[in-house]
């Protein structure tokens, strides 16, 4: 899936009520089978960029296209469908639902897009087995280590085989061993499935693995 963003801008209300510019006229393309790294200092707008690309919040200006569909201007219901079927998210803070077990967290991805539960369960178990968390399937997030939580979150992100995966500092809370596992999986998605991966990171190792690296500075996106 070709991802195109044009002129994305976002402002937030700051602590004193003044608008704070998070992103300014950002353009970004990602082609199928491409890993794009976005690097930048804290507060440079990296997470905002991923939130906009992932339709997690609306831009103040600009457009986002997936192939020939302008997804940034779809209805709320249609955007929810796009999020469920075409985008996978991996967050630094994992964002697992605390009241659900690991397997139920993974299966959440399938629930809202109407997939057959038995098929989704089989696929989820294969994924969890590969990531080494199958034996933790009935544990709640609070009973899992950070590395385990991130691997469960990764399984949830890719369960529906989304053509676009957005990873926001996916290795930020992990040690080197687990970070390499997640980076290897993302790289594998790009090579084997032709997934577009947009990775926000401050790790030089992760950015070096990318096909293309972009730098965000003060809300502006430039080639690194």
């Amino acid at each position, binding site marked *: 899936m070709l991802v195109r963003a044009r002129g994305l801008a976002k402002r937030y209300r700051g602590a004193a009520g003044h608008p704070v510019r998070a992103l300014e006229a950002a353009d970004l393309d990602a082609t199928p089978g491409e890993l794009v790294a976005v690097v930048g200092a804290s507060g440079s707008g990296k997470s905002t960029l991923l939130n906009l690309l992932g339709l997690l*919040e609306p831009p103040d200006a600009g457009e986002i296209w997936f192939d020939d569909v302008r997804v940034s201007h779809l209805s709320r219901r249609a955007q*929810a*469908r796009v999020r*469920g*079927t075409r985008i996978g998210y991996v967050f630094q803070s994992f*964002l697992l639902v*605390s009241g659900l077990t690991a397997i139920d967290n993974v299966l959440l991805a399938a629930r*809202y897009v109407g997939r057959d539960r038995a098929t989704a369960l089989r696929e989820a178990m294969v994924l969890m087995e590969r990531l080494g968390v199958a034996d933790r399937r009935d544990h709640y997030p609070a009973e899992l280590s950070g590395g385990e939580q991130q691997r469960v979150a990764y399984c949830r992100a890719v369960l529906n085989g989304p053509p676009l995966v957005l990873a926001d500092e996916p290795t930020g809370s992990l040690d080197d061993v687990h970070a390499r596992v997640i980076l290897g999986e993302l790289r594998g998605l790009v090579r084997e499935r032709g997934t577009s991966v947009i990775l926000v990171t401050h790790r030089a190792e992760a950015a070096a693995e990318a096909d293309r690296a972009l730098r965000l500075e003060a809300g502006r996106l430039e080639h690194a």
Partner: protein
Amino acid sequence: MTAAVFERIRDFGIKRALGATDLHLLREVLGEALGVSLTGGAAGVAIALGIGWLVDLKILRDGQQVFLFSPRLLLFALVFSVVLGALAAAYATLRIAHLSPAEAIRRGT
């Protein structure tokens, strides 16, 4: 019920990021509200019946009856608790439905 929904605002944000629509979330919340309200309502009716029976039995020994629970009254109490629970849950869900998934996650974290 309203407080329970607001406490889970982060979970709603996560679920919407995974493709849940407002209708999905409303259905989930109403399902839970129905269970909680029915259980609570039934427990309330049972406690009221028990207390009424005890009062009539222990305090009034001359065959008089202070508490009279008609089936219609008990049914009304049950239906009232379910409707109130559902309204509270729906109100809270609609209050947070306008938030973007990212905003819901931020507020709940």
